[in-house]
């Protein structure tokens, strides 16, 4: 068995060989499901997410029964409906989750209300719904953050207007709550092992700004360490945003090359920021 997180201080290296402020390796692709209105695939380390967008459609109460919904534009715009499916093979132990898993529902709600803040829903009208299905194929920490990032990317692919990417990242601290170590370093983008052993939070910001859209912290952490962790997570969000933007631009370039859109159109629609 490999070492645990307590060895960080020996050489300032984390359990997987990263430094405190490094993100894991990320991979992303847009339009992985051509039959859908929008889709994306995102990997952050070994956490692998597929996101499928359908809609905006007319509201269909049957299909949103297990999803969490949130209205955009103060009730004037389309509704965002998020449903998460965690594949039974996503975790180390094969495990089937029920539809009413409370943790999953909480994540759905967080994502829905976060995205509702980013989506410019008024162009669709209040009776329409954007369905966001998130499939977790493999799970290795920072799950909520990855889900948010994958949904953002898929929404761009679907062409849903947004003010900016909604990006998220986790941050932790090298020492547990009880250890009360004053010199604990903050850590960026935790994997499963780190999440199990250390306190951490998930932070979602609007693009590269420091505007916090959502923050979730379920572990006990000293108040004094919180600021450092949040700053680290915000830095991580910037990194994720740059990465996602790069993916979108590459995709745009490819579309131009393939002649899917004309050059003139590209400039106006891709110059969102």
């Amino acid at each position, binding site marked *: 068995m490999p070492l645990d997180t307590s060895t960080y201080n020996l*050489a300032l290296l984390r359990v997987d060989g990263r430094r405190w402020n490094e993100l894991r390796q990320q991979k992303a692709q847009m339009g992985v499901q051509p039959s859908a209105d929008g889709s994306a695939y995102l990997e952050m380390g070994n956490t692998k997410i597929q996101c499928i967008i359908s809609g905006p459609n007319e509201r269909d109460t049957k299909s949103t029964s297990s999803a969490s919904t949130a209205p955009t534009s103060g009730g004037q715009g389309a509704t965002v409906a998020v449903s998460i499916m965690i594949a039974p093979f996503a975790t180390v132990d094969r495990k089937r989750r029920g539809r009413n898993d409370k943790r999953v529902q909480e994540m759905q709600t967080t994502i829905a209300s976060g995205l509702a803040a980013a989506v410019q829903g008024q162009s669709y009208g209040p009776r329409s719904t954007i369905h966001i299905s998130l499939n977790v194929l493999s799970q290795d920490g920072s799950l909520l953050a990855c889900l948010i990032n994958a949904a953002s990317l898929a929404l761009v692919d679907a062409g849903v207007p947004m003010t900016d990417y909604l990006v998220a990242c986790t941050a932790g601290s090298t020492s547990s*709550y*009880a250890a009360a170590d004053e*010199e604990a370093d903050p850590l960026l983008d935790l994997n499963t092992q780190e999440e199990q052993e250390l306190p951490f939070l998930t932070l979602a910001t609007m693009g590269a700004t420091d505007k916090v859209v959502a923050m979730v912290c379920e572990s006990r952490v000293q108040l004094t360490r919180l600021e450092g962790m949040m700053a680290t997570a915000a830095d991580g969000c910037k990194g994720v945003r740059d990465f996602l933007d790069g993916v979108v631009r590459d995709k745009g370039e490819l579309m131009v090359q393939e002649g899917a859109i004309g050059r003139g159109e590209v400039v106006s629609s891709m110059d969102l920021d």
Partner: protein
Amino acid sequence: MTSLKRSLESDPASANFSSKTYVRSTKSGKVQKIVREVYLRQDIPCSSKLCSRCRNTAPANAVGVVSPFVLSDKPAGTKEYPQGHYLVPDTNALLNAMDLFEQSTAFYDVIILQTVLEELRNRSLPLYNRLIGLTKSEDKRFYVFFNEFRLETYVTREEGESINDRNDRAVRRAVQWYNSHLAQTKSKKLPTVVMLTDDRGNIEKAKAENVPATRLREYVSGLENGERLLDMIVESQEKGISRDKKAADLLYPEHFSLSKMMTGVKNGMLHQGIFNVSPYNYLEGSIKVPAFPKALLILGRDNINRAVDGDVVVVEVLPKDQWKEPSTKIIEEEAVTKNENADGDEGEDLVTEKERRALQEEVKKTHITSTEGRAQPTAKVVGVIKRNWRQYVGHVDQSSVSQSAKQGRKQESVFLVPMDKKIPKIRIRTRQAGELLGKRILVTIDSWDRDSRHPIGHFVRSLGELETKAAETEALLLEYDVQYRPFPKTVLDCLPKEGHDWRVPTSTDDPGWKGREDLRPLIICSIDPVGCQDIDDALHARPLPNGNYEVGVHIADVSHFVKPSNAMDHEASIRGTTVYLVDKRIDMLPMLLGTDLCSLKPYVERYAFSTLWEIDADANIVNVRFTKSVIKSREAFSYEQAQLRIDDASQQDELTQGMRTLLMLSKKLKQKRMDAGALSLSSPEVKVQMESETSDPIDVKTKELLDTNSLVEEFMLLANISVADKIYQSFPQTAILRRHGAPPKTNFDELSNQLKIKRGLELRCDSSRALADSLDACTDPKEPFFNTLIRIMATRCMMSAEYFCAGTQAYPEFRHYGLASEIYTHFTSPIRRYADLVAHRQLAAAIDYEPMHPAVRSRGKLEAVCKNINVRHRNAQLAGRASIAYYVGQALKGRVADEEGFVMKIFSNGFVVLVPRFGIESVIRLRDLAEPEPDSTFDAENYVLKTSGSRDLSVELFQKVIVRISDAKDEATGKRGGQDGAGQGVFKNGRIHALDRVGTI
């Protein structure tokens, strides 16, 4: 359709990226496949002060601090490596010789590879922790190099390659890289990086790859004091693979595999528990398992199957026809196996003829009595879950050392006889047998293989001549795992800078005064034993206008000086308690705090934590409050002085009046406690009087108890109970409390049976009240000590009290059986007990004096603290007693004393006598009574032993005998002690002549 699959080569980052897959099995036996990412990088420094390139890329932590480089630029050289060298041990080297690496004479500049660290952690967590400790010590210069994360040194496991081969290859690769990396520094004096291993195959491969490598043994013998160090290398690894084991050589049955044991335990076929050896018979062990109310017996070497006292083992219950009675015979390993040869092990049966004979009589008897159903279930050990081996102190058995070895330097096997009689003899190989004779030495057990009758260990260090005060004291401290090293600098740095000049700030605006009450006007005094320096507590009482009394207990405010989670707190939590030996005190906190700044010394102002009650004249509590305060003690009394002052009617000052009030109230409190069913238990307590200058013991006295002792005790109990209530109300999950479980009824079976048969008395143990009453009734009009004797014996049937975290038990379980209190904690001695310090912090938070520190709030952390201090507390008690026993032996040196004793326990070939005057207990064997050993008949039902032949007498339980205690050094065992000698049996027997050691250490 787009494909998600991408080739690895197309990704520019793939060169720096790898993943690690491994399989692990969970506790429930499930197999899991774990995949981990591995990020390879090139900015992991070599940490050599010679290297400037690495310094440029060295990583910084979040605040930008770069860790200093560890490895010296001028490492020590040896014959082989005159330019100096850095060592890279492999896992086996560390497993076999961790003691060597901890030496201060050699083994500096060591590179620990991540591969090795991981492997070591899997193999042995204690060794891993010791190694981590070493890497933190600055002067040893140990550096952990994360080779698995460095691009150049990462190796992938090849097909068909075993994990061990892969790890060995990783070590060689790292050594190779280090050498080539250092070569680029262009240093004139280039140190060699040397791999240290015991694996022959690895060495050969290293030679082929041109990697500098050496065997541990060769390396050590090349060192200056090599010979002494050689003994520290684990013995069993020596022979290694070369020795093929024939089935016939295997003496012991094989242990079950872990999974087989786990399955067995789960389905109830096997039982898990902690193995305990009987102090009177090394071939008899017992194990308490949850499935049975009574302990299971484990008899004979075969069934014990290499378990050592304290191991966590799994046992299988034997069929009913093999059930036996617990032994009634004293069997001492020393005597039975005296002439065994440490070197020759071949062709011997597991159970020697002598041992068989010793057990023979047991069997005979079982056949007669088993029909009566007194036989107990027996069991055999089928496997060991966890060894609880520690370092053992003992001495070399003289008879196992050959004559030639006393001069020469030949390596030979000798037996080490541990001080703890429950531990079997340990075989060690040494080149310095001659020198070790007559010394106290420290050894560890390395292994106990099936083909070896005795466990095999190795020498760690010598403590000094047997019987010298220094060696014996250190031996005692080691044996009871007492941390006695001086406080490290980091701890001393936590002390107030003013040192002894620290004073309570004069201005009440000072932050130190915040939230404190000014109790300086109160007439407070302290009452402690003579010569007490660490004064924890002080008291006061004064009448209130409404006819009630205000009583205050003021406790040293240690938590003001020891802040949570700093180095001093950490050290104190490890030490757990102050240990009092006869001539020495091993402090929990540095002297400056314990005996000065915290100590509530008279005439000076001190910070205190006060508990103040309003108590009415019948000692009912009207109300209670707690506050941090500043006090000024008026006087520090000894118990005797306080007693004299109270008794002296001419003293009418306020202080004496206060003490009289306290005494009056304490008597009422005590009565209430007794009515509630509190037990007054007893243990033989003696005090050793020392000559003031040489501190040689001169006499032994039993401790006297005065009214003032009980005065202080009552109020301390009251304070503890009040505080326990308060912190439990505020922190129902995390309050640190102390409980004393009700003893299971079966514990008293034997004692009550003995009382019934011998004296016709009944012992009831339904409740503590019933027990207290029936103990009161156990008197013998002719013999006042009889009651105390029964109390001593009853005490041994009790559970031991323990600290716990409130959330771990249900409220009814909180009960303190002995004190008959619903809830209890320790609050009154924070200078010498860590639990009290935690209680102080919790109480401070409960009264909103300061916010609760996370370390005091985390239940997991507190549970760990409780576990540790429970062990430390027990060890401190045992060490204290052992120290007294040693000094009693010393005090009796060269004297012969006839003393009264009482028979406490009776065997078929001897009996145990307690001598109250010296508080010692000792075995008298039949062969001590007369030469030749008299014949005997033993009536187990009536606890009577009759001897005939060379001496005729009859000994029975609880009988008063006169024994002669004389001092004799037993040459064979090297132990100092007394001998029980001739004396008159008071009741009816004639002269007893006995020879035995007392006060063995």
